[in-house]
């Protein structure tokens, strides 16, 4: 039931997204006006697809990260992965600007993977009795890397890029400029194959080993998937904070933690929520646009506060 409602909402939002923008476009025009079709094909369509992929993939990454770290209050964009990706792409831009784009992406992903691995090491040293410490460390850790990125950017005079990577927005998405995101979509879809494994490592190392799982291997696969998705998102549209935090928490409150059942729901909800924010951003100060990162920053932080204090129903 919920699933159906979610999918319907998403479809409605997608249709809305196609017809909201600076240039007037009515549904009737598609049939008669070739320019309208062209607009959809080169701009509105790609933008909608990019938002849906980003929202869905980020929400899935958030879930996986929360399972790996075993804490509900972390997500890649605020715990160092996103900043690591930005650092990676910054370094690539600085030192090897001539590499083909896929190589650049691979390097950015590697740095994101490294920063997430370090975060995992730090988290494992924290006392398990202090669950609030994990997101705290994550936020500060992400902040440090972010400040490091800013430092390098200042020194190298690359500040104008920072704004693009650090603040997610979709207004620049056109046909030919977002296709890398399909890789993120693929990776997020692939991680569904390992949904059960991720659910099990969410119960901890002992439980995983007990159930015959290769714990380290699953963690590495998970981190890799998070890093690829995050790096691709950062480079293509920029950071969108809190998607990976808000969506998995809400889904888990509604439908529990059986990832095989809930992961598709998480992806659809993430896509719908980010798309809704994007549409709001396009409408609120029409004809100007407000970046989806700004909209989601407000929304996400508010929901995070609520999550911190709202008691879990079954607890």
């Amino acid at each position: 039931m919920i699933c159906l409602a979610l999918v319907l909402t998403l479809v409605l939002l997608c249709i809305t997204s196609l017809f909201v923008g600076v240039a007037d476009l009515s549904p009737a025009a598609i049939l008669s006006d070739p320019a309208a079709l062209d607009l959809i094909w080169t701009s509105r369509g790609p933008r909608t697809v990019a938002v849906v992929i980003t929202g869905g993939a980020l929400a899935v990454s958030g879930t996986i990260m929360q399972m790996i770290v075993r804490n509900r209050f972390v997500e890649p964009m605020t715990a160092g992965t996103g900043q690591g990706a930005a650092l990676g792409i910054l370094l690539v831009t600085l030192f090897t600007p001539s590499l083909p784009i896929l190589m650049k992406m691979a390097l950015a992903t590697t740095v994101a993977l490294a920063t997430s691995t370090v975060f995992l090491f730090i988290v494992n040293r924290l006392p398990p009795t202090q669950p609030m410490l994990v997101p705290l460390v994550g936020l500060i850790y992400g902040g440090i890397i972010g400040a490091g990125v800013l430092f390098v950017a200042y020194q190298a005079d690359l500040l104008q890029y920072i704004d693009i990577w650090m603040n997610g927005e979709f207004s620049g998405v056109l046909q030919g400029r977002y296709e890398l995101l399909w890789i993120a979509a693929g990776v997020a879809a692939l991680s569904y194959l390992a949904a059960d494994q991720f659910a099990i490592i969410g119960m901890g190392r002992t439980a995983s080993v007990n159930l015959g799982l290769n714990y380290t291997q699953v963690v590495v696969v998970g981190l890799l998937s998070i890093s690829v998705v995050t790096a691709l998102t950062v480079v293509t549209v920029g950071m969108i904070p809190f998607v990976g935090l808000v969506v998995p928490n809400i889904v888990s409150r509604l439908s529990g933690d059986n990832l095989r059942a809930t992961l598709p729901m998480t992806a659809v909800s993430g896509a719908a929520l980010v798309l809704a924010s994007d549409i709001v951003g396009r409408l609120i100060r029409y004809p100007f646009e407000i970046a989806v990162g700004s909209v989601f920053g407000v929304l996400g932080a508010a929901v995070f506060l609520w999550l911190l204090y709202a008691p879990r129903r079954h607890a």
Partner: protein
Amino acid sequence: MLAVLLMACMAGYLTLGARGNWDFVLPFRGNKLVALVIVAVAISTATVLFQTITHNRILTPAIMGFDALYVLILTVQIYALGAQEYVRLSQSGQFIANVVLMLIAALALFGTLLSKTRNDLMRMVLTGIIIAVLLRAVTGFLQRVIDPSEYAVVQVASFARFARIEVELLAVAAVMTCSALAVTWRMRHRLDVLALGETAAINLGETPKRSMFQILVVIAVLVSVSTALVGPMGFLGLLVVSLAHLVTPTASHATLLLSAALISALTLVGGQFVLERVLGMSTPLIVVIDVIGGVVFLILLLKRKYR
């Protein structure tokens, strides 16, 4: 010793690398120097006070979003009044109005937070950080809603910048900081007692709840002053107060306030001097401080030195 080092840095900052007319250079740099020192002392004092009333070593007003609150208040005003209207107001009047609004908002927001989450330090810290994130997000959101031209006005007012210091504000800022510092200094023994914990403080005849609100007022004033002068200062407070605890391991606030203030001034003036004149770097000092301060914060957390 710290004082001597500070003097040296100040002298160096004033004179080194200056070309041209001394009559121009000295007053110009002198003003900047005064502003830097005011900001440094305001931040260190606000941080010491905040750590005393929250009984921990990792929280600072900046981490809990005090300066973000100030910038938000500024943005909301510009949003409500429009930039032209806003710029027409007198600087000092603007500033005093901001401080008053800041006092009300800070007491309402942080007063509630501190009395509600006393027993769960980590939840308090996390809530504070998220509130700071939220305040910044709302600010960013409003800034984008405001016209691009008005946005520029806020931008000037919301980044830590030492290159353009609001010299017109200097007199007002100095008076407010000095009165806040005087109040703090008179409280130093009470602070020692408050640091013993709530029960011990009541037992010794203090009134922790009332003191907490008085201290929050002082903190709000100090943060407003420093934010108005140069913008948000990030991890500076945490960094210098942690250093002060290392250099002068004592529970006496008289010593701690002094050493934190000296270290803070040394960090700002010295850091600015080294960065600007010696290394010739283009990065703002605050970015460097944020990296180092963030690492210090992580270390404090990991070594569990938060009490």
